[in-house]
């Protein structure tokens, strides 16, 4: 009975619509400027998803609108449709094929995730301290200096951010780096990024933290290693003791809590 449907034409229409939607959507830079090694990988994943999603969307649209065009009741037609209750092969197909597609998506995402979170040999560790409604940053070294409201990192070197929140949850997001991580009171969270473009960016708090949430921003500067060393050397202040003490067990990567025989 499905022989009566123009399957080949419908598939062709689906492919054509997929191509058209992809052709419009792929050239657009949806995520904005890319400024880390992770960004192009995430954007590629997005592009693959855009093509797959365009296909699924096109398939649904072609199937739906063909049916609406072909099987619309004529005015005054009070009869019923054909008593078709299902088709086992078709039902198996639209269970199995989407399963394969989403499992492919899961595998691809997993590989991108492990890729962008792979620790490098010699990362720079920077402590991030957040509080209502300000950011500050601690740099390693014998003095453990810190900077208020301005984050500087060297270009082309992996940075591991160790994040701490003083009062409520905040979230660290630099859109150009494509990384985001909540800063959670009581625990240390980690984010890894390798900035690969010099420039000035904005750090945005993305977890609702009170009335000042919208303006909780900080300036981010990616500079050459030489400029970075000079900037750190000029930092005047040391990390205050209460902030330094707040660095606690990292339950994100090690599930054993403090005092339970871990670390």
């Amino acid at each position, binding site marked *: 009975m499905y022989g009566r449907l123009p399957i080949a034409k419908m598939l062709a229409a689906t492919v054509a619509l997929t191509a058209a939607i992809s052709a419009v959507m792929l050239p657009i830079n*949806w*995520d*904005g400027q890319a400024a880390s090694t*992770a960004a192009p*990988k*995430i954007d590629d994943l*997005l592009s693959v*998803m855009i093509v797959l*999603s365009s296909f699924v969307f096109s398939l*649904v649209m072609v199937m739906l609108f063909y*049916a*609406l065009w072909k*099987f*619309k*009741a004529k005015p005054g*037609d*009070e*009869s*019923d*449709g*054909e*008593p*078709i*209750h*299902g*088709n086992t092969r*078709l*039902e198996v197909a*639209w*269970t199995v094929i989407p*399963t394969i597609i*989403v*499992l492919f*998506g*899961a595998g691809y*995402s*997993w590989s991108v*995730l492990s890729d962008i979170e792979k620790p490098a040999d010699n990362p720079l560790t920077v402590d991030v301290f957040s509080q209502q409604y300000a950011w500050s940053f601690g740099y390693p070294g014998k003095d453990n200096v810190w900077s208020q409201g301005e984050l500087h990192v060297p270009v082309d070197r992996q940075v591991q951010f160790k994040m701490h929140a003083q*009062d*409520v*949850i905040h979230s660290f*997001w630099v859109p150009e780096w494509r990384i*985001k991580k*909540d*800063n959670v*009171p*009581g*625990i240390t*969270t980690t984010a890894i990024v390798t900035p690969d473009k010099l420039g000035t960016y904005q750090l*945005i708090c*993305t977890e*609702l933290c*009170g*009335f000042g*949430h*919208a303006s909780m921003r900080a300036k981010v500067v990616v500079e050459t290693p030489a400029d970075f060393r000079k900037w750190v050397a000029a930092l005047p202040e040391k990390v205050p003791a209460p902030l330094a003490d707040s660095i606690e067990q990292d*339950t*994100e*990567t090690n*599930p054993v809590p403090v005092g339970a025989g871990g670390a």
Partner: protein
Amino acid sequence: MVAAIKQPGWIRGALGAILGAAFGFALVVALRKASGLPAYQTEQTGYPQVVVPLISGPLGFLLGFGCFDYWLRWAAGMPTIPEDHSQHGAKSWKDYFRFNTDHKVIGIQYICTTFFFFFVGGLMAMLIRAELAQPGTQIVDAATYNSLFSTHAVLMIFVFVIPVFAGIANYVLPLMIGAPDMAFPRLNALSFWMLPLAGLLFIGSFLAPGGAFDAGWTGYAPLSTGAPLGQSFFNLGVQFAGASSIATALNFLVTIITMRAPGMTFWRMPLLVWANLSTSLLVVAATPFIAGAQFMVLFDRALHTNFFEFAGGGDVVSYQHIFWFYSHPAVYIMMLPGFGIISEVISTHARKPIFGYRLMALALIGIVVLSYSVWAHHMFVAGMFSWLRVPMMITTLLIAVPTGIKIFSWIGTLYFGKIHTYSTAMLFALAFIVTFTIGGISGVMLGMVPIDIHVSDTYFIVAHIHFVLFGGSVFTIFAGIYHWFPKMTGRMYDERLGRVHFWGTLFGTWVTFIPMHWVGMDGMPRRVADYATQFGEWNLLISCGAFILGAVQLVFLYNMIVSWRFGPRAEANPWRANSIEWLVSSPPPIYNFDEIPRVVGGPYEFGVPGARHAIMAGEGVEAPAKPEPTVVGSS
């Protein structure tokens, strides 16, 4: 006057509320005095002299209003007052404002109450979009803005989408399975009357010192544990809405399992019944988790229990695990009943059996099972144990499979059918397929950890949830309201106004929520009153779309009110549907059936020669030898 106080009703209810609140207040003051403390405590989070009356006042109202009269008399060994006619059926509009145990009256009470909160929440959305039309702050300050979007979401979720489905099912489901009422009519009435209390607590929080709750509908600790008094209104409102939800779900479960008409096997249940069975399974097991989470926050605030207070040994992230263990299944609680509605509407208006009926039912059960295993996809950047992200990603993506089955099956139902699009219900059902597909696609993208890391807590999320909750759930609600309006009111609505409402809503939904995806990916965080000027033009467009969307809902309101009063009389079965509710008069008689119908076949046997779903009383004992195409109403 004395008689009025003795009778259950509004006067005794008001008295109960006042006495209850006074008792709670006196208890707090007396206990504090006895402990040598000052009578009042006005720390930011404490206020026991307000919080305790907020519990005892509503309970006093329910007692006074008569929700517990029968049970209390029975428990005390007093003669119970048997059901008189006044507790069943509604003769005038006043009967809808009384404690009534008739499932059809309760259904309409639910629908009207929830739509009241829909319009209040919608007005808040209009204020939010007015503020966001331009960068900078113009209309409200940042703190009020936080209160507005928090209350908007809470009203829409807890006292609109979740209970309006309970309302529609309350009306339709017992009729559909051939039952005279729900299994526990008094519990049903109590469930309903807890709902306006929840809504009033949410809205009433604007009167609290410090303003309404402003930690988002998610109420993450420790922002919520340290928030002003309004947060306690939220914690308590959720308890009333949640208790209402759980009691209704139990009622549906028992009704569906034990009260189906003879012959209605599980595989002969309409998909709306399957959908409410699945939803109820989710509600009874998941809702206690949000009740628990909000009690823990309330205890942290009032009793310093330190569940989520890191300085006191609490664990901040655990709030999110408990919260989302309810709130992700809640997404399906807000979607599965809608799936049921769409199945009924599409099958009826395409004059075709549902394509792959058994797989459709199994897909619902699959969603129920999977939805308990995906909650942490809301927490990919929350700092939880990082390994957990991958299994949660896989289950999240897999849940797209049963959802996809449903989309394909609805489209399959259209093939070789006779599609009628004169009904606004069918237009909403067809548009739902399109908008929900988009919401599903963005959901799959969000399920992928690397993409989610970039877009979580941005406008992409706002776009996604509105596509699935407005373009999804609310479209199905409109489809359901239009579809059963003739049955509920006995009147036809105006299809022309229905079309205006439909096209306006569709256009408004797309203009409002599509660009939100773009600004979110490009760097605009959610929950901000102010934003970077680069997003100004898109936000102006979004706001214009939202105003169109808001304005066109007034057409719906007008259509419903005027048609209910003056619309042409509806026949028993205006859509020529098969299920049992269409075989009785519109509106159905009190107690639904003179005699319980007998179910003899599947619910969607359109086009099958001689097939019947149910045989009504007085139609003869044997199935007719001569095929009859459709069954006309018994009235």
